[in-house]
């Protein structure tokens, strides 16, 4: 009964509060943190003129264009382009515009360098897919207008750098030439477009830079054929490989006749070293050829003669050549030597002298160097110094200058694949006295300040101090478990195969590990990380062990590639064990069993549909029943057989989305009390699957299908028996579908073509087989089977209710809050198209909503029906911030029942704490304990005083 009273009180409390979440301005940053990233850098252009701030403009694999401060590595400005708007090239024009070519060369944009405002944007026409090339000549002018040359989609465009107008274009799509390079020698107004026709013909087009007229067309056949791309070595020389990949071909193309010169590689190098790859670094007169691990530098002399300059064994990356003072050209070369990196800056014309040689110690968790960008600066003694920007294997970005790491950015966190959590260690007893005393003084000081704040006596400086104190509270970033369970470790796996542990209090990286098993090696050519699972969660009898996580990966892009498993201790960040598997990993199923050391049992399904049980201990095998694999001697491998299958007709339905309940979700009760004390029993099953299919015709782009030929069909399927519990068709609707399944309901989002609006629907499913249990007396004496285990083969009868609403925004991700006991009401977390996270009460998505709810229904908290879902500005959990490139939202229950941690990740990371029904089980953050203490002290004092007074008075009475 007391629970009932409590729940009723809760209900009243909730219904009296319209929005569970909203924030005051001074609460920003108290329980949330936000980190901004850019992703793995693809291109970098330095802008280090004497005046103004030194910066580097980068474009990344996350389709970000950003300007970074060279001193500290902070982001000046940043633009996240759409997911299919990949940046092909980046450059700076006129010293004030950043030019980006994106979307396979079809969009050219100019951004203002100081503040990142877009200046102009032009769409370039073209139909043939081709290489996208961007060239910003320094002094090519057409009518006093600096010209940008763009080759994309079979067209050569000359674009004005002032306003983005296309001045002229030349169509190459009819010529069947694959243009490889565009070059414009500075001294002339001739543009050379060079490329291959077929595999064995080389063509050169000369084009007037002012008008786009074709001046000359030369062609020469090379009977051996070409392989791969050409590299421009000098202004009149190109180098390529022949079709057999055993000869280097130099092409001299600016003379009257195109001449080829062929040099056998093994003759040049002296021995056969394997398959050569020409690195795309432009080194002016030198080319770098990579054989497995060996890097060979070859100088191109006149007449196409080649000469080996140097062979370097541990070279990691080479930058482009950079010209500085009087035509001198320098480039950077990075080698790995004894765990350190060796940076060498060499001059192109003088190989033997090293202009600069620095050895830099580096955290080996960053991995190998993958890219180098070089920049020069003038030292105080007027000599030239060099700084380099390097991109590491784990995607992090570092600036090196004078033998030191000036700054580093952990850009791996911009591409998170999977997230799991780990508890922090329990706090140890015994704190030193000095610490306590110091803390006591601090504590007192803090509370006096807070008291001043509460009594409105604080000056603006005091308020600033109080705010600062609140933000930097050491309480939230401690490395121990807290009472409320707010402090945890977020274990995130990134695309680079690196595992990070982030502290939920302030988002700092506790440890990071570049997983050795997910690095390129002989046996594993293209490793990719797939997912992270909780492997060992210490509980009562394994408390002294550290928790660990399981990282599953695979050695190749295809899903039948062999898998790799890695086990990582979450306290120390050390890899405990790694397994290279003989089978593939198509699916990982965590089982609800643990062994005596609290290791969770996992079933790995391979591409041949065999199940493999991990951990491989005899204890684990005790849970197994099925027969072993045929033909494989492995007692941890099991056969599988088809239990059921549902065949969707391929001509009318195509699966586009599925949703299941989260494994760790806790449901408090199986009954739902509706108006007039009636009960409905929820159909709560972990074996429930939501499947959405659409018409194959409607799977294309927006606007293509007509409403008549597109439909969306949703299914609720019992995954044990394969029974379809519910099927519903939305005519005239199409994807993309985002869905979330929790307790006994599923909410999904799709596009309604007839209404031209997005819609959200809810399906709630109720169990009718238990509906008979309504006799109070039977319940009183416990004569019911509501808590006895059930089998889904008993085919419990189910009933569904559903309703649809319009929703004005398109959605990137959908999640639901989860709490420790599942008592607190739920909120949907919607990742909107604007990269924000919106919290929407589940009460708005209640199929029992009606236009005129009865009094009893109103008391129950049912909101009158409206055709669209409200978007309340205060309920954005990300408040003023954006999680750029939002990909996923993860909710983590805390020990405090009312509260959920919400982690949103994309290019940015954001974590906050929300309470869907307010924090009914704890005092708020700004509660003044000092005031409470003061009141108690005052009251006790008052009691003493009055007691003494009454004693005195009584004595006097007696003497009278």
């Amino acid at each position: 009964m007391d629970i009932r009273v409590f729940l009723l009180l809760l209900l009243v409390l909730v219904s009296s509060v319209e929005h569970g979440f909203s924030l005051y301005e001074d609460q920003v940053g108290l329980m949330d943190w936000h980190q901004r990233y850019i992703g793995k850098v693809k291109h970098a252009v330095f802008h280090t003129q004497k005046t103004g701030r030194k910066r580097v403009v980068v474009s990344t694999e996350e389709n970000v264009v950003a300007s970074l401060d060279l001193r500290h590595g902070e982001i000046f400005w940043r633009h996240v382009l759409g997911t299919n708007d990949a940046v092909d090239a980046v450059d700076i024009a006129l010293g004030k515009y950043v030019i980006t070519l994106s979307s396979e060369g079809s969009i050219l944009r100019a951004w203002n360098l100081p503040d990142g405002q877009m200046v102009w944007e032009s769409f370039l026409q073209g139909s043939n897919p081709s290489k996208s090339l961007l060239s910003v000549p320094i002094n090519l002018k057409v009518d006093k207008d600096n010209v940008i040359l763009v080759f994309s989609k079979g067209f050569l465009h000359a674009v004005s750098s002032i306003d983005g107008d296309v001045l002229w274009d030349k169509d190459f799509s009819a010529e069947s030439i694959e243009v490889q390079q565009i070059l414009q020698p500075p001294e002339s107004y001739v543009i050379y477009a060079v490329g291959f026709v077929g595999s064995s013909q080389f063509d050169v087009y000369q084009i007037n830079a002012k008008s786009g007229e074709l001046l000359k067309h030369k062609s020469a056949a090379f009977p051996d054929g070409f392989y791969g791309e050409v590299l421009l070595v000098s202004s009149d020389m190109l180098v390529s490989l022949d079709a057999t990949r055993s000869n280097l071909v130099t092409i001299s193309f600016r003379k009257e006749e195109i001449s080829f010169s062929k040099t056998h590689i093994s003759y040049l190098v002296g021995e056969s070293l394997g398959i050569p790859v020409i690195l795309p670094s432009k080194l002016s007169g030198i080319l770098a050829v990579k054989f497995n691990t060996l890097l060979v530098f070859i100088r191109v002399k006149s007449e196409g003669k080649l000469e080996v300059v140097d062979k370097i064994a541990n070279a990691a990356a080479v930058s482009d050549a950079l010209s500085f003072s009087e035509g001198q050209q320098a480039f950077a070369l990075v080698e790995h030597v004894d765990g350190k990196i060796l940076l060498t800056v060499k001059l192109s014309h003088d190989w033997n002298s090293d202009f600069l040689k620095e050895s830099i110690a580096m955290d080996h968790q960053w991995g190998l160097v993958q890219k180098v960008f070089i920049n020069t600066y003038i030292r105080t003694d007027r000599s030239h110094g060099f700084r380099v920007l390097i991109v590491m294997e784990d995607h992090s970005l570092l600036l090196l200058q004078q033998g030191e790491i000036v700054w580093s950015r952990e850009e791996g966190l911009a591409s998170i694949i999977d997230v799991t959590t780990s508890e922090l260690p329990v706090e140890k007893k015994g704190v030193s006295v000095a610490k306590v005393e110091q803390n006591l003084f601090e504590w007192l000081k803090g509370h006096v300040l807070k008291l001043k704040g509460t009594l409105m006596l604080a000056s603006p400086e005091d308020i600033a101090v109080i705010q600062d104190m609140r933000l930097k509270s050491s309480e939230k970033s401690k490395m121990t478990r807290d009472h409320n369970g707010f402090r945890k470790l977020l274990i995130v796996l990134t695309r680079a195969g690196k595992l990070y542990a982030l502290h939920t209090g302030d988002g700092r990286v506790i440890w990071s590990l570049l997983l050795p098993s997910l690095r390129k090696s002989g046996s594993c050519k293209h490793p990719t990380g797939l997912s992270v699972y909780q492997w060992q969660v210490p509980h009562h009898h394994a408390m002294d062990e550290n928790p660990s996580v399981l990282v599953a990966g695979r050695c190749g892009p295809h899903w039948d590639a062999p898998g790799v498993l890695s086990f990582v201790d979450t306290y120390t960040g050390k890899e405990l064990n790694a397994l290279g598997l003989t089978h593939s990993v198509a699916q990982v199923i965590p089982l609800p069993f643990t062994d005596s050391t609290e290791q969770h049992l996992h079933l790995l399904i391979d591409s041949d549909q065999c199940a493999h049980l991990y951990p491989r201990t005899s204890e684990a095998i005790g849970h197994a029943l099925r027969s072993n694999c045929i033909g494989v001697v492995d007692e941890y491998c099991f056969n599988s057989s088809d239990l059921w299958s549902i065949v969707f007709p391929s001509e009318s339905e195509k699966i586009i989305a599925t949703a299941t309940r989260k494994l760790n979700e806790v449901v408090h009760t199986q009954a739902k009390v509706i108006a007039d004390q009636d009960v409905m029993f929820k159909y709560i099953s972990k074996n429930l699957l939501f499947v959405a299919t659409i018409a194959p015709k409607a799977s294309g782009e927006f606007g293509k299908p007509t409403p008549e030929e597109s439909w969306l069909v949703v299914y609720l399927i019992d995954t044990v028996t394969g029974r379809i519990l519910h099927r519903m068709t939305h005519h005239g609707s199409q994807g993309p579908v985002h869905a979330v399944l929790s307790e006994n309901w599923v909410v999904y989002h799709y596009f309604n073509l007839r209404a031209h609006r997005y819609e959200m629907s809810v399906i709630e499913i109720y169990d009718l087989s238990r509906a008979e249990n309504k006799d109070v007396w039977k319940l009183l004496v416990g004569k019911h089977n509501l808590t006895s285990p059930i089998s889904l083969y008993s085919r419990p009868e189910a009933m569904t209710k559903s309703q649809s609403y319009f929703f004005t925004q398109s959605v990137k991700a959908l999640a639901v809050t989860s709490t420790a006991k599942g008592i607190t009401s739920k909120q949907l977390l919607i990742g909107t198209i604007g990269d924000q996270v919106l919290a929407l009460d589940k009460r708005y998505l209640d199929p029992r909503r009606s236009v005129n709810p009865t009094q009893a229904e109103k008391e129950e908290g049912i909101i009158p029906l409206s055709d669209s879902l409200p978007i309340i500005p205060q309920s954005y959990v990300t408040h003023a911030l954006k999680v750029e490139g939002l990909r996923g939202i993860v909710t983590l229950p805390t020990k405090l029942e009312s509260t959920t941690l919400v982690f949103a990740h994309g290019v940015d990371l954001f974590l906050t704490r929300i309470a869907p029904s307010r924090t009914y089980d704890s005092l708020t953050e700004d509660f003044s304990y000092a005031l409470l203490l003061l009141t108690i002290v005052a009251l006790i004092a008052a009691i003493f005083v009055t007691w003494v007074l009454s004693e005195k008075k009584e004595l006097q009475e007696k003497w009278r």
Partner: protein
Amino acid sequence: MEKGKGVMVGGRRWAVDFTDYSTSPSSRDVPDPPGFSRASQDQDDSTLSRQKKDAESNWKSQKAWEVAQAPFKNLLMMGFMMWMAGSTVHLFSIGITFSALWQPISALQGVGKVFEPYKDVKVDLLGPKLLFIALNLGGLALGVWKLNTLGLLPTHASDWVSSLPPAQEVEYSGGGIPIR
């Protein structure tokens, strides 16, 4: 208080009783003064006191009935208060309901005490007591009814099943679309 009592007890070391309880003259050392008839006075006294006693017992029984009926007024007032409080659960209605429950219970506990002053050999207190108890039980019933209208009594199936955890499932399934 304790202290004061102790002083009083300690202070009274001795006492002389001047009251004369005897009725027969022979037992006395000092003869009655002339013209004083002890008997007649006794006679007078007894008739007077009897009358007085009758009146008192009448009064007592009347009072007892009054006291017994007192909860009725209380009942009416409680009813009014409850009507005012409405049927939603909040501090006011809960307070009133609990006081409506507490009052009759405490009154029933102190039935003996309430009728103590009216205890008399000649007064039959059974009737008033029964009425008092009945009225208080009525009040209690009213309180319980109110509790029920507030929905705080577990009289519905929902009260018994709302905290039941979901039933365990025998089967377990997992998986999904293969990880690409």
